């Protein structure tokens, strides 16, 4: 029984990581209607920033996290202003082709800059130790991920639902011309939102290195899982993405443990069922 609970706890921690990866994509896809398959490249970027700071400059692990988010966010804003905004009005297929190309390019750049090998990242001892939490054994790092994910989800939900910034973004999405007409600078708003999504991806990437490793193929390795989170959660919904990511992490772990013969496929079956019965995802918003 304690085995079962500790597996669940691990699965939830894994889900939190998926949530941090996918939240930026959910925002750009749901709010800005831009299909950004290069989202994983931002996560990779955050990972490399963290690794370079930690291994190259001896910056403490906790400080590398905000640095990864800020640097990736800025790169996101620059890219949005220079290239990506021209892609918004294009049809979906072109958006997909453009962004997948961007992801390949990012992987190639990482290959040139850092080489194809795995980047080592050794976490501080307090994060790798196994701790008891509410009677369940879990490593410090996974507990840290869970807490981090909860805080991030709370902050983002508050930002989009209860602040003026959030209201403006929602207004711009619903009717761009009307929003511009009442004086909202939609261009700047979208750039900021895109940067925010990139920053969260960068943060997720930095947090993931110690757990999933990092190399130039990173943008593609988690693309399927991230798209699953967004599809099941419903694009644009932070709460939906959160629930979907946790469910995927926990259900995957649970079935792998209970019925290892088929456990690897359960989440994919779940995705198919969801798409048949709830094509708009948990949150039910149209994409």
């Amino acid at each position, binding site marked *: 029984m304690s085995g079962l609970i500790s597996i669940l706890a691990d699965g939830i921690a894994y889900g939190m990581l998926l949530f941090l990866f996918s939240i930026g994509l959910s925002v750009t896809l749901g709010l800005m209607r831009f299909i950004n398959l290069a989202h994983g490249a931002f996560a990779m970027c955050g990972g490399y920033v963290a690794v370079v700071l930690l291994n190259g400059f001896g910056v403490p692990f906790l400080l590398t996290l905000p640095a990864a988010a800020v640097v990736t966010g800025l790169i996101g804003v620059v890219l949005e202003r220079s290239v990506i905004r021209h892609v918004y009005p294009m049809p979906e297929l072109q958006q997909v082709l453009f962004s997948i190309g961007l992801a390949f390019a990012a992987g190639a750049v990482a290959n040139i800059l850092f080489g*194809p*090998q*795995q*980047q080592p990242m050794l976490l501080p001892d307090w994060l*790798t130790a196994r701790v008891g939490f509410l009677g369940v054994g879990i490593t410090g790092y*996974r507990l840290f991920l869970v807490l981090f994910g909860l805080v991030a989800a709370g902050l983002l939900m508050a930002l989009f639902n209860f602040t003026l910034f959030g209201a403006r973004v929602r207004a711009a999405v619903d009717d761009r011309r009307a929003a511009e007409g009442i004086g909202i600078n939609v261009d700047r708003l979208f750039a900021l939102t895109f940067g925010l999504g990139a920053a969260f991806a960068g943060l997720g990437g930095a947090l993931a290195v110690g757990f999933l490793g990092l*190399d130039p193929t990173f943008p593609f390795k988690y693309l399927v899982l991230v798209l699953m989170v967004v599809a099941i959660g419903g694009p644009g919904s932070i709460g939906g993405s959160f629930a979907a990511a946790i469910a995927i992490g926990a259900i995957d*772990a649970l079935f*792998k443990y209970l019925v290892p013969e088929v456990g690897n496929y359960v989440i994919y079956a779940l995705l198919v069922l969801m798409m048949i019965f709830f094509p708009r995802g948990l949150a039910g918003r149209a994409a």
Partner: protein
Amino acid sequence: MARSKQPSVQARRRSVLLAASAAAAFPLARPAIAQERKLVVGVVLPLSGTFADQGRNNEEGIKTFQKIHGTKVGNVTVETVMRDDQGPGSGDLSRRLTQELIQRSRAEIILGYSFTPNALSAASLLTEAKKPGIIINAATSIITERSPYFARVSMTLPQLASSLGQWAARNGIKTVFTIVSDYGPGLDAETWFTKAFEAGGGKVVGGARTPVAAMDYSPFLQRAIEAKPEAVFGFNPGGDVSVAFMKQTKERGLSQAGIKLLVTGDVVDDNLIPAMGDALDGVISALHYQVELDNPANRRFLTGFREVAGANATPSYRTVQAYDGMALIYHALQATGGKTDADSIMNAIKGARIDSPRGPFTIDPATRDIVQSIYIRRGQQRDGRWANIAFETIEGVKDPAK
């Protein structure tokens, strides 16, 4: 500045003179030497994509060899032409590149093949074109049976898995739980470990097969712990997957539960160790090479490797495999006295004995597969760094699957 320039101008003038006199002497000297000629070695490796890392390891091994031993064997100048087969799942590309190398680049020997399907798809082509193919990584047992022109200098997975199984049974381990990646090599590892271990009196009490790219091993490790075996045997395809697996064995507290961890040595490749850290503590593995080997060939290799790849670089066992592939070609050219037709080369390769950085190995004349020592190693700290330290050597290990 002006002063320092002066001698270099002189030196250049001198070298021009030397070159001129050498050129003048050359036509006279020429009839005395046997024919000078060039031999092209075509190289097929994954140099881009997910497995670019493996290709680069191999490439560095080839460069290191030519750096140390030069490009000339007798009167033959060995030149390499590299092609990128982009990793597994591109057998057709690997076959096409092999063909291009033979037809356009006039390659007389092909070196490479990181993945089994890529080697297999080129097999019939090599047979037809009568060109030797030296395999420097692909590890499935069957490959060398598919063409009489294949020879292998890497290893086969059954060599590692069954050596480890034997060792475990001999050293009083009674029960084992296996965790292998669910694809060809993983099933090979499971089969041959189990065979050797149970033949020695051990018992496999359970097992799990994990998705090839799985990153979360908690559920499988938890099952392993609950099965209460004395040891867990693990195999996965290296890279980030193996780093994740190793780290999680520590997170999950395998050793606190009193369970030993046994893995095939490719899982704890020397150049992954920095990313694994203390997860390597006490892990038993079987492999044919580790950086710490103390022999003259390895010292020489490491010096050359660090000139090629940088002072702080750590070679992979794959680097050595490629290095040995070149060694085998040079050996064959020496033995044939410069004859480069496929049958002469293959005859020289059969039964060849090479003094490799991994220790001496031979090529079995019957199967053209490698016969080598397998080291049983334990993960421990040496000079403040984690390393695989060999404590037992099983000599003359043939591929048990043949």
